[in-house]
C-alpha cells in the first residue's frame, strides 16, 4: 500500500493528566515499514503514547506530524482498546457502526459487516448481543469494527493482554493477514514473546520515554541499553 500517512515525526511530545506527568518528551520517527511494537513494562507509557499518536489523548507540548493533513490522517486511523468496548447492540450492528456514522446506508453497512464478521470467525454470532461474547470474540469484533472502514493504520493497545494462548494465536493470525493486506499496525505489548513473533520495528519505552528504538532484529539481537537487556532477560525493570 502506498501510504499517505508516513513518515510520522514526533518531536518533544509530552502529556500529563491532573498534574501527573505521563509521557515525554518523546522523539520518534516511523516510516511505516512493517509492524511496529511499543514494548515496555506496565506503566512505561505505551498506552498513552498510542493514544497521543491517535489523537485521543491531549498533547500538552511538542508535535506529532503525519505526512498528510492531521484531519485526513485521523480519518485514516482506527484504534483497538485493551478492553474492547462493546456497544449495547448486536455483533452485526457493532461492526457496522463505524460505516453508519460515516454516512454509509445502514443496509450497505450491514452487508459489509457480515463479510468482516465472517472473516473474523464471528459469522454465526451476528445476531448475538456483543456483551455476551467471550473475551477473544469481543477482541475479534473490535478488530472487525476497526478494520471495516479500511484504515491505513490501526493502533492496537495490548490486544491480547487478557486472552488465553489459543485466542492470542487467532488474533495474531488475523493481525498477520491484516498486515499482509497492507494495513499499518502499531501495537503495544509487554509480552516479549508476542513482540518477537510480530515486530518488524521495536520502540522500547521506559518511564514515559522512548528508551530505545530500531529494527526488531537489532533490538532483540543486541539491545543497546542495559535496561533493554534486562527487560529481554526477563528481569524486573523499574
Amino acid at each position, binding site marked *: 500500500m502506498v501510504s499517505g500517512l508516513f513518515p510520522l515525526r514526533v518531536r518533544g511530545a509530552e502529556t500529563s493528566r491532573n498534574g501527573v506527568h505521563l509521557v515525554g518528551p518523546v522523539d520518534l520517527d516511523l516510516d511505516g515499514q512493517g509492524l511496529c511494537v511499543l514494548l515496555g513494562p506496565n506503566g512505561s507509557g505505551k498506552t498513552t503514547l498510542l493514544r497521543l499518536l491517535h489523537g485521543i489523548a491531549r498533547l500538552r507540548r511538542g508535535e506529532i506530524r503525519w505526512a498528510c493533513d492531521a484531519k485526513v490522517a485521523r480519518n485514516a486511523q482506527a484504534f483497538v482498546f485493551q478492553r474492547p*468496548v462493546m*456497544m*449495547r*447492540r448486536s455483533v452485526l450492528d457493532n461492526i457496522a457502526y463505524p460505516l453508519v456514522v460515516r454516512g454509509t446506508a445502514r443496509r450497505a453497512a450491514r452487508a459489509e459487516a457480515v463479510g468482516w464478521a465472517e472473516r473474523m470467525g464471528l459469522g454465526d454470532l451476528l445476531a448475538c448481543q456483543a456483551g455476551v461474547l467471550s473475551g477473544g470474540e469481543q477482541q475479534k469484533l473490535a478488530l472487525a469494527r476497526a478494520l471495516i472502514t479500511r484504515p491505513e493504520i490501526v493502533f492496537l493497545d495490548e490486544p491480547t493482554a487478557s486472552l488465553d494462548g489459543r485466542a492470542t494465536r487467532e488474533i495474531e493470525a488475523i493481525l498477520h493477514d491484516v498486515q499482509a493486506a497492507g494495513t499499518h499496525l502499531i501495537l503495544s505489548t509487554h509480552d516479549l514473546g508476542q513482540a518477537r513473533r510480530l515486530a518488524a520495528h521495536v520502540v522500547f519505552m521506559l518511564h514515559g520515554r522512548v528508551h530505545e528504538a530500531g529494527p526488531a532484529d537489532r533490538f532483540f539481537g543486541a539491545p543497546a541499553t542495559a535496561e533493554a537487556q534486562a527487560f529481554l532477560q526477563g528481569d524486573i525493570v523499574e
Partner: protein
Amino acid sequence: MTDLWQGLVQAFWLVVTFDPELAEIALRSLRVTFTALAIACLIAFPLAAILAVRRFRFRRVVIAILNALMGLPPVVVGLVVYVLVSRSGPLGALGLLFTPKAMIIAQVIIIVPLIASIAHQSLRDIWAEYHDLLISMNVTQTQKVRTLMWDARRALLTAALAGFGRGIGEVGAIMIVGGNIDQVTRVLTTAIALETGKGDFALALALGFVLIGLAVSVNLMIHGLGQTEREGRW
C-alpha cells in the same frame, strides 16, 4: 376495611359494566398524561444526553438543579402555571386556564426533571463506557447523542415510565389549573379527591383501584413492547 372491600367490588363493576363516565375520565387521564409524557420525553431525553456528553461551565450546577427539581412540589407548579395562564397572566390571552392543555403544561413541568435525571444517570454510565471509542471514531456530537439514546433506549423507557407514574398519579397541580370540571378537565385523581371530599369513600377507592390497574397495565404493555428483561438484551 368495609370501605376497602366495597371499593374493590365497585371498581370491579365499574370496569365490567364499562361505566361511560368512568371510561371518559380514564381516557382523559390517559390522554393528558400521555401527551405530557411525549412532550416531556422530547425535552428530557436530549437534555439528559447533552448533559452526559458535553462539558460546559456550570454543568454540575445544572445537574444538581435538575436533580433537586425532581422533588418539585406539584402544588407550587400548579400555582405558577395558574398565574401564568390566568386571564391577567402573561399567557392569559391563550385561554388555557381550566383546560386539559393547562393540565398538560403543569404535568410536563413536573415530570421533565424526573425523566431527565433518571435518563442522565443511565446515559452518563454508557457515555463513560463509550467515550474513548466514539472519540476515536470521530463521531459528531449529534451522532454521540443519537448513539447514546439508542443504546440506552431501555433505560430511557424506564425513565419515561417513572414520568408516566408521576404524571398519572398527579393531583395537586392539575386540580389548580384544570379546576376538576365535569366532562372537561376531570381526571381520575381529581375525581378521587372530589369523591373523598363528598364522603363517598367506596367510589373514591374504586376510582383509585381503576387508576392503579391502569398504571400497571400501561407499564406491562410498554415493557412488553420494549422487550425488556429478555435474556441477552439490555
